[in-house]
């Protein structure tokens, strides 16, 4: 059942959330055995009778977002027994609108991964083929939607592609908003200047509804500058008809280059051409600094994450061992025990590039390259309304294929998602086709705060 229908039935009294939610949780519990998309399933959710925009809707939340009294691990052993004593702003907003938090979805540790294989707990499996990756880092968030036809809304988070990638691999819609539109208060940070909380759903409308609830300014997050808006009006049929005709779709040639699977290119190009029948025009454009996005992204993300993770030292929360030795010895023993391999790798790299003598060479340089990448996009948006490209260069790889990749090769898989993330642009994955039963995603990227525009394009065609 779709969320729209569910809401209608709740409204009419045909569905009673107090009876339906326990049934849904039971089904999720069963499905979770096969697909491992939850780290914690909320078996006794607070069922409110609030009559908001999410009245009675079951909502699942990526495990890096704090939920009061409900275990929040960020996919790490170091937070295995962490029970937040407050709600993230977006959780508060969801509950105020009648949404019911039914589970915390699995993820790469602290969001460190493209394939959701760097997990301290459950390793989510792709519902289209359980021998394949769900995509990372919000893997569980996408699997929770793709594994059933339950009317779920899924809250995810992206730093460099962590919403788009799993949405593409699992064949669901995944919206990453403009940096700052959604409050990050209560998010366990990966990289402060890059983290964005977003929405996954089974349609553009679902994403629009979720965004309408979570977007908006928050005095607890100084970087939040979002306006409150009803985004569902942008996916209204009449609005779409009027809106798309005459619009220009920019197709960046660099996103169809070497390394992108031929079949993926073909399916995505055919999808883009369909917008011509709605009156849109296609224009090839160039984003010349694309080549450097991957390095600039990883330098900034790792530098910021290595400082963020310094708070995990066995004092105020998280894993603690017996206090022995001096401060350095104690902190080191907790961190060595609590962090997984990829987290250690990223902390070491991030620490190195911030060290005296290297900071200018890597970190400052990357911030300057980021400026050039943002300008690339700004120039492109002078010539077109949205950009379209493949979301991921290939379909979800098999777990045994991922094992043979080096860390550098794994990082390179983010080639199509890092640049718009680095520029803080809004983007949405739209499932537009399949290769051997595995989903292929179209990426629609908009200018800052143009969520309405990309949602309108995403909702224009039924695939």
């Amino acid at each position, binding site marked *: 059942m779709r969320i729209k229908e569910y809401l209608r039935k709740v409204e009419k009294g045909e569905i009673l959330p107090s009876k339906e939610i326990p049934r849904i949780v039971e089904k999720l519990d069963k499905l979770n055995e096969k697909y491992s998309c939850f780290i914690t399933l909320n078996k006794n959710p607070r069922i409110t009778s609030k009559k908001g925009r999410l009245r009675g809707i079951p909502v699942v939340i990526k495990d890096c977002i704090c939920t009061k009294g409900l275990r929040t691990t960020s996919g790490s052993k170091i937070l295995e027994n962490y029970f937040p004593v407050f709600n993230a702003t977006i959780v508060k907003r969801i509950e105020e609108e009648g949404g019911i938090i039914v589970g915390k979805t699995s993820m790469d540790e602290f969001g460190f991964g493209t394939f959701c294989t760097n997990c301290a707990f459950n390793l989510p499996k792709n519902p289209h083929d359980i021998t394949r990756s769900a995509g990372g880092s919000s893997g569980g968030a996408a699997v929770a939607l793709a594994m059933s036809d339950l009317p779920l809304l899924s809250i995810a988070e992206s730093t460099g592609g962590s919403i788009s990638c799993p949405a593409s691999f699992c064949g669901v819609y995944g919206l990453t908003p403009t940096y700052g539109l959604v409050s990050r208060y209560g998010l366990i940070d990966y990289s402060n*200047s890059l983290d964005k909380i977003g929405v996954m759903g089974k349609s553009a409308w679902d994403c629009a509804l979720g965004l309408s609830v979570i977007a908006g300014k928050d005095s607890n997050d100084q970087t939040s500058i979002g306006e409150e808006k009803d985004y569902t009006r942008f996916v209204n049929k009449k609005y779409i008809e009027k809106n798309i005709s005459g619009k220009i779709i920019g197709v960046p040639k660099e996103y169809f280059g070497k390394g992108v699977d031929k079949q993926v290119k073909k399916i995505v190009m055919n999808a883009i051409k369909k917008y011509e029948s709605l009156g849109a025009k296609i224009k090839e454009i160039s984003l010349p600094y694309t080549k450097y996005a991957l*390095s600039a992204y990883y330098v900034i993300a790792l530098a910021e994450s290595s400082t963020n993770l310094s708070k995990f030292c066995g004092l105020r929360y998280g894993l603690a061992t017996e206090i022995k030795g001096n401060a350095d010895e104690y902190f080191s023993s907790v961190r*060595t025990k609590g962090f997984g391999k990829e987290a250690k790798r990223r902390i070491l790299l991030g620490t190195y590039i911030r060290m005296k003598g290297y900071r200018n060479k890597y970190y400052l*340089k990357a911030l300057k390259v980021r400026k050039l990448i943002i300008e690339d996009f700004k120039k492109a948006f002078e010539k077109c309304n949205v950009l379209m490209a493949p979301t991921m260069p290939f379909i979800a790889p098999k777990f045994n294929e991922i094992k043979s990749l080096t860390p550098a090769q794994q990082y390179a898989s983010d080639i199509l998602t890092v640049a718009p993330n680095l520029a803080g642009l809004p983007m949405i994955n739209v499932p537009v086709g399949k290769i051997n039963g595995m989903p292929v995603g179209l990426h629609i990227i908009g200018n800052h705060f143009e969520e309405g525009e990309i949602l309108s394009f995403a909702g224009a065609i039924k695939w």
Partner: protein
Amino acid sequence: MDIEKVAKIARINLDENEKKEFEKELKEVLKIFSELEEVNTTNVEPAFNVIRIINISRKDEVKPSLRIKDVLKNSKHTEKNYFKGPRII
């Protein structure tokens, strides 16, 4: 690359095998990062943030916060109303 020095600063203990493995992987990644040197960034301002963020200030007023009992809830080492840590001096 002095992996031991980096690990010390990062407060992570590495065994001999990990040192070798991480050093090799890190070198590979750093080699890729050095491609940034090709880009001419003369007169380019670093983008610490992607959108213009204006400083927000508020009055320094006492407001209700979390209860001390709750704040201490997630810590293993506490004494009275304090967190307990290792010796610093």
